[in-house]
């Protein structure tokens, strides 16, 4: 973990495009993972996130992802910023059985497990989760219990699917709206604004969403750590 002045920030980017679990191995290989990780790494760098880790393909195992999120959450410290991004396939919540999860190289990481890992972040920290996958907003319902202020940027609703293209329109739009060309967009002052812009001109069947575990978080400037006290 790099030592910086003030609140620390970290990002963990997951690009799960090599699935070996028997249930997932026959599925179409997700095409946009690497482009998404590249774009979001660039976005985070522009936002001042200095410590970033990308876990792609066979490196995106449940063990390594758990370790990376746990270490990053514990390491950002009070008032810090943690960004976790996921690109790949998802399993949909099944009422009474599970709340859904992200398909990794070897198995599914259930959202409830991810929530437990994010709980290591101090309550004064900020967590941003970017879900570029089917049923993307499903994790937001589970992350409501994370102590840190947590905002989920989802490619679609929990009952919607995204298509497997080489580039994610959601991610390219997110990059353009926040840090186009590495420069902050002065209009992007809150998650409320970002939500409105992300949803503009999108089909009803695949509409991005932004959800927070505390309503006040929607007024925060995206990708900023908590202000110093």
């Amino acid at each position, binding site marked *: 973990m790099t030592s910086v002045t003030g609140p620390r920030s970290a990002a963990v980017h997951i690009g799960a495009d090599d699935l070996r679990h028997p*249930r*997932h191995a*026959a*599925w*179409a290989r*997700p*095409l946009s993972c690497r482009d998404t990780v590249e774009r979001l790494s660039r976005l985070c760098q522009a936002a001042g996130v200095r410590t970033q880790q990308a876990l792609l393909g066979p490196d995106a195992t449940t063990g390594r992802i758990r370790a990376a999120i746990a270490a990053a959450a514990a390491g950002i410290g009070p008032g810090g910023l943690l960004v976790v991004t996921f690109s*790949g*396939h*998802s*399993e*949909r919540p*099944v*009422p009474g059985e599970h709340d859904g999860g992200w*398909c990794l190289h070897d198995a599914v990481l259930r959202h409830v497990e991810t929530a437990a890992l994010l709980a290591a972040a101090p309550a004064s920290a900020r967590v941003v989760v970017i879900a570029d*996958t*089917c*049923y993307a907003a499903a994790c937001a319902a589970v992350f409501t219990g994370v102590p840190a202020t947590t905002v989920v940027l989802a490619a679609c*609703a*929990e*009952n*919607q*699917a*995204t*298509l*497997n*293209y*080489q*580039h994610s*329109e959601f991610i390219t739009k997110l990059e353009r709206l926040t840090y186009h060309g590495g420069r902050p967009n002065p209009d992007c002052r809150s998650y409320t604004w970002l939500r409105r812009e992300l949803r503009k*001109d*999108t*089909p*009803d*069947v*695949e509409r991005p969403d932004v959800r927070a575990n505390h309503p006040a978080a929607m007024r925060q400037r995206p990708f900023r750590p908590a202000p110093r006290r």
Partner: protein
Amino acid sequence: MIGAGRPIPGRWTAAAYTCLMVALYVAEPAVVSLTVHDHVQLDRVTGTSAERYGSLIQPGTSSVSLAAGTYVFRTAADAQVQLDKGAPVEVTAVPLSDDKDKWPDPPPAATNPLPAARGDGPPDHVPALTVLR
């Protein structure tokens, strides 16, 4: 009528996953009439990717001019595609599921592969597609 109302038992909830995906294979430039009930995006499939084709299609009936190629759109409600008699266009509903063996009739030769969803399982409900000539 293709893919009319196929409920998947056991997973129907208030926030049901409802989706119909339609592919249009256009051999020569043609005009099709689409009737949809929500805001729909038409994509032109290019290789393993796709590009948005035109603006969002508004609810109601719209005439759309299509160049030769493969197009897809998805909707959460029933849809109707009307073609002129003899129009060189094939229209089919595409399964959205992880069962890769359940594809529709093979598309015409030399067309691009259709995209799949990035998630497990088929929709809870598949709206109906009606094709009129």
